[in-house]
Structures are given as structure tokens and as C-alpha cells.
């Protein structure tokens, strides 16, 4: 690993490595200034933001052509490896989708303000830093940066009671979890004598049973579990998902979840792999509780956004189950799962945004009745995505679960695999129930479909990826294995 330290040695090629982040930060400030001086030209603000995100993806992928390898910058505060590149690519795509989804929705709901793209850009910056955090301080700062943006975004519809409640709840619980996380960080620093993940791994290797280190680890894991809404730290999720404006919910369910899971993986794989036996029990408990609660609590839900919240909790459980293995296969499975879960999320939230009734969004599942007669394409794509979430065979969701459970079984954790499969069978019930309502129930009030091209494009692309993944799985399998290899050697 090549270490580039301090400002003196920050040669241009090192800054090139940080190009996506620098671009995001600079453009966020530019868009902010532009928005203040030209408040009327909202369309161009959105165009600039989308262009920035695309440029950031290009800047991220450009160095791939050079044999760069892994870098650490700023005394190990930032790690640039294949894992970080893979996750950043997904996060930037998720942010781009959040911009596309928001444009028409915010116009319709009179929320058109230039701060939305600015906050999305800054949140994306925070998430990009989260996945390449290499020490406790940069981890905490990145978490706070994205967290603060998300609290504000959740309360963006400030005249709505629901949205304000979501923002407040998210803020209070997020601050609490940050406090717990910081307490854990201080213990880790106190006992390991360093904040870098690499040094933590060294300390964990020499004294894996040290009580102080374990206490620190437990507190940090509790804080991180809050951020990715694993049971028993999931309480905020349904309320925030329901209350936040739908494009923000899509962003929370997509990019924010991705970054949080990636951070847990990075923290445990980079910092505590030598003490794996110590944290595996914690992750097993989180995984089992999340899978079971995600499967059962979603059954009674009537609102599609609440249902997606419980579904997200369940999916986090499957990913954590793969993390328990602490093997290369497990991490590769998580990375593949994250990519495919992101496509399903984008697709489903685009579909939800497309459905309208008079002036309000359709969010009640019972109102989907007869959707298939009025909007066959919408209903078909939504059904594909729901089947994929349920993990029905030739669709992408099946492969995501397949690789995760394969890793779990190979690690010899049979009870965990059995619980996981049973939970996903139960979860299939509520996904299929929506399909049944769309296709077989008598039509309720007609649903209008919004005419925006962006949403239809996102929905169709997401549907096609989920349908056609089995034809060419290597497109995602190889990058996910490359990413996993940079954390745990195969």
C-alpha cells in the first residue's frame, strides 16, 4: 500500500485520487452561490447537479485505466481502494437517481428550492468519504456530514407535520447514536492508542480479549447499527421513511443504506478482522433480529413507504448475515447484494412517484388495485421488481440472496442460513400480496400516471437490470469480487 502523507507530499496525482470528492464539494458551493443569485433558474440548477454527479463518476473511473492500486491519503484518514471505488460508484448513481426523481415531484408539491440539490451533493460527499474512511475521526466526520444533510432533507417539506416529525425524530435519534459511537471511539482510542483502522487491527491482534477494546467495539457497532437501521436500533426507520418526501426516502433507502453498510464492513474488516470471533456474535444477533423483524413486521403495513422501510430492515439482516462469515466470499456477496438492492430500490420508488391521484401521491397499497389494466407497463415493471425483492429465481434478487447464503453455508453457519431462508420465505408473502392486489383485485379509483420521462426511464432500466442480470452476471460479479479482495484476501 502506498502512503501519501501530509500536504507537502500531496502531488497532483494524489489530488487526482480525491477528484470526485473535490468536485462534489466545489460544485456544491458553486450551485449554492448560483442558486442564491439566480433563484428563478431551477432547471439549470438541476442540470448542473446531474452533470456534476456524472463527472464525479467519470473522475472516479478514469484512474482505473492506470495500474494504481491501493492508496492511503492524509496519514491513513482516507483509503482509496477498489472497495471504495465500487461503493462510490453505486452511491453516485443513487444520488443521480435522487436528482432525477426529485425534479418533477418537487415542482408538483411546490417544494422547488435550490437547496435540495446542494444538500444531495453534500450528503453524497459525506457518503463517499464514509466508504473510504480509514480512521475513527474521518469516519465520524463523514457520518456527521451525511447525517446532517439527511436530517434536513427528511424535514424538507417543512409545512407538513409528518415531514417535520420525520426530520426531528431522525435528528434526535441520529444525534443519540452519534454520541454512542463517539463514546465507543474514545474507548478504542484509549486502549489502542491510535485512531487508525490499521493500528486498531494491530491492537486487536495482540490483545483480542482486552475488555476496553471490546467495550469500544460494542458501542461503535451500536452507533453504526443505528445508521443502517439494524434491529434493535431500527425504530426510527418506518416513521422517517413515511414522513420524508418520497425522493428523499428513495435517497435514504438507497445511497444512505449503502454507505452505512459499507462503513460497517470497512470498520470490521479493516480494523477488527483479527478479533473476528469477538464481533461475530454481535453481528449474528443483529442479523437474526433484523431478518425476522423485517419479515414479520412488514406484513401488516398499508403504506408502501412503511413497507419498504421494514423490507429494508430485512435486507440489512441478510447483508449482516454475510458479514458474520468474515470471509472474502461474504464481503463479495454483500457488495453484489448492495448493487442489486439499489436497482430494486430505485425502480420501486420511481414507480411510487409515478402514481398520482388528483393532487396527492398514491402511497396506500390498497389503491394499487387494478393497476395492471390502466398502466400495464408500470404494473409489469413493479411486479418484476417485487418478485426480485422476494428473491424469485431467474431475477437478480435471487442471485443476490444466493451468493449471500452460499457464503454463510460455506462458513458452516447452518442455523443462520436456515433462519435467513425462512425469513425470506415469509417476506415473499407481502411482496406477492402487492402483485396480487395489482393484478387480481377489482380496480379502485383510477390512478394517473405522471408524464415525466426521467421516472419512466429509471423504472424501465431498473426492471431490465433485474430481469437480465442472469444473462451476464459477470458485469457486477467481477467488480464486487475486486472490491471485496481489497478488504479481505480471497
Amino acid at each position, binding site marked *: 500500500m502506498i502512503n501519501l502523507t501530509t500536504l507537502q507530499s500531496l502531488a497532483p496525482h494524489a489530488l487526482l485520487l480525491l477528484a470526485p470528492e473535490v468536485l462534489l*464539494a466545489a460544485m456544491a458551493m458553486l450551485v*449554492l452561490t448560483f442558486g442564491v443569485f439566480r433563484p428563478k433558474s431551477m432547471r439549470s440548477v438541476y442540470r448542473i447537479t446531474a452533470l456534476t454527479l456524472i463527472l464525479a463518476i467519470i473522475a472516479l473511473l478514469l484512474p482505473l485505466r492506470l495500474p494504481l492500486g491501493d492508496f492511503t491519503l*492524509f496519514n491513513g484518514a482516507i483509503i482509496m481502494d477498489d472497495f471504495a471505488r465500487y461503493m462510490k460508484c453505486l452511491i453516485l448513481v443513487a444520488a443521480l437517481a435522487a436528482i432525477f426523481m426529485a425534479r418533477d415531484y418537487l415542482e408538483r408539491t411546490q417544494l422547488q428550492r435550490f437547496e435540495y440539490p446542494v444538500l444531495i451533493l*453534500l450528503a453524497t460527499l459525506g457518503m463517499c468519504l464514509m466508504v473510504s474512511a480509514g480512521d475513527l*475521526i474521518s469516519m465520524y466526520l463523514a457520518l456527521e*456530514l451525511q447525517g446532517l*444533510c439527511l436530517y434536513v432533507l427528511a*424535514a424538507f417539506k417543512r409545512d407538513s407535520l409528518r415531514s417535520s416529525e420525520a426530520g426531528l425524530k431522525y435528528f434526535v435519534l441520529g444525534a443519540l447514536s452519534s454520541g454512542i459511537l463517539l463514546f465507543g471511539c474514545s474507548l478504542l482510542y484509549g486502549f489502542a492508542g491510535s485512531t487508525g483502522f490499521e493500528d486498531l487491527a494491530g491492537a486487536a491482534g495482540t490483545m483480542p480479549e482486552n475488555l476496553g477494546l471490546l467495550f469500544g467495539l460494542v458501542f461503535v457497532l451500536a452507533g453504526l447499527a443505528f445508521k443502517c437501521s439494524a434491529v434493535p436500533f431500527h425504530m426510527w426507520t418506518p416513521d422517517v421513511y413515511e414522513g420524508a418526501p418520497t425522493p428523499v426516502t428513495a435517497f435514504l433507502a438507497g445511497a444512505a443504506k449503502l454507505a452505512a453498510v459499507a462503513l460497517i464492513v470497512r470498520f470490521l474488516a479493516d480494523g477488527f478482522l483479527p478479533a473476528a470471533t469477538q464481533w461475530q456474535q454481535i453481528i449474528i444477533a443483529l442479523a437474526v433480529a433484523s431478518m425476522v423483524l423485517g419479515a414479520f413486521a412488514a406484513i401488516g403495513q398499508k403504506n408502501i413507504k412503511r413497507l419498504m422501510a421494514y423490507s429494508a430492515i430485512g435486507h440489512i439482516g441478510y447483508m449482516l448475515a454475510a458479514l458474520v462469515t468474515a470471509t472474502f466470499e461474504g464481503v463479495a456477496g454483500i457488495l453484489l447484494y448492495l448493487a442489486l438492492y439499489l436497482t430494486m430500490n430505485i425502480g420501486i420508488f420511481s414507480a411510487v412517484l409515478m402514481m398520482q391521484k388528483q393532487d396527492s401521491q398514491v402511497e396506500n397499497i390498497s389503491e394499487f388495485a387494478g393497476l395492471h389494466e390502466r398502466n400495464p407497463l408500470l404494473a409489469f415493471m413493479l411486479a418484476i421488481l417485487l418478485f426480485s425483492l422476494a428473491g424469485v429465481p431467474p431475477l437478480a434478487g435471487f442471485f443476490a440472496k444466493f451468493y449471500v447464503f452460499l457464503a454463510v453455508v460455506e462458513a458452516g453457519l447452518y442455523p443462520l442460513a436456515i433462519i435467513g431462508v425462512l425469513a425470506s420465505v415469509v417476506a415473499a408473502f407481502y411482496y406477492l400480496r402487492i402483485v396480487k392486489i395489482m393484478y387480481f383485485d377489482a380496480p379502485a379509483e383510477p390512478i394517473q400516471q405522471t408524464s415525466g420521462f426521467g421516472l419512466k426511464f429509471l423504472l424501465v432500466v431498473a426492471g431490465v437490470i433485474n430481469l437480465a442480470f442472469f444473462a451476464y452476471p459477470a458485469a457486477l460479479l467481477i467488480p464486487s469480487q475486486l472490491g471485496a479482495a481489497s478488504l479481505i484476501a480471497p
Partner: protein
Amino acid sequence: MILEAVAFYFFAGVCVTSALAVIIARNPVRSVLFLILSFCSAAALFILLGAEFLGLILIVVYVGAVAVLFLFVVMMLDIDFTELRSGLLNYLPVGALVGFILLIELILVFLITLTPGTTTPKAPSPPLHTTPNTNAIGEILYTDYFFLFQIAGVILLVAMIGAIVLTLRPPVQRKGLPPAEQIARSPSDSVETRDLVSRRGA
């Protein structure tokens, strides 16, 4: 040495007495002023210890910003402090318990440092007499921690944007009098005639 000890006991005494005065003083404005005195003497204690950066920060941040904000709040808002103080006897046992636990913890820490063979505090690096600690902090803050420093700046920017997004309302568009409403008013809406008894008022 003697001078240092005298200065320590003086500032420590002022610090504790003014902290007590903060909760005893009847006038809230005096409470805040005593708080400022307490902060200042704590800052003097820091400077005696050789941590001049911490001492100055205490004055700049706590006295300059936080305490002044308290003063504003105390003077601007109409808070009934006698009512706030009314539950003193109810809360006293809990407060005393918390204070007692803190005291025991302090004694334990003190005893542990007295017993030989336990950890000794590390000497500051670089040594205090070669580099003043404001310099030392500045040197690592803008080199090793340069990146983290910038990110902290971005977080503050987000906090500012967030506060504006959630609270700023666009100014009310109409500032003049609407002519149509003015013309539509009739005398019966706005004028009331009453019989007034002499020397009694309305």
C-alpha cells in the same frame, strides 16, 4: 513556586465561589455574570497549567459566545425564574446523589494516581518549553489534519444551510394597501358609535 501556588489557590477559590454564586444568586443577570467570572478563572487555571490555547479558547468561545448568548436569552425572554426555582427541594436529593457519585469518582481517580505502578500521564509532545501549544496545535491542524479540518468546515456549512432551509420564510409579497379591499369597506364595518358617560371612559 510560592507565587504559582498563591495564584492557583486564588483562581481556584474564585472559580468555586462564583460557580456557587451562579446557582444561589436571585437575579438571573447576576447569575450569568458570575458564570462569566467562573469561566475566566477556569481559563486562568488552564494558563497556569501551561495549556494557554485551551484557556484562550475557553474565553473566546464560552465567555465571548455562549455566555453572551445566555445574557441575551435572560434579558430578552420573559422567563419566570422564581417559578423555575420553585422545585428546588424536590430535586435536591437527586442532585445531591449525583454530586456524591461524582465526588466518589474523583476520590477514586485521585487514589489510583497515588498508588505506584499505575500509568503516569504522558509528557506533552513537543515539550512545552520548546513550542507553545498554540503553535503545536496549529502545526498539526493545518498539515496532518488538514483534510479533516476542511471536512469540519463543510459540516458547519451544512448546518448553516439546514437552518436557513428549515426556518427562512420568503418575505410577504404584498406590502402596500390593497385598493380593492379599501374601497369595499363600509363605515359600518369600521366605525362604532357609543354613548359615553361623562368622566367614565369607554
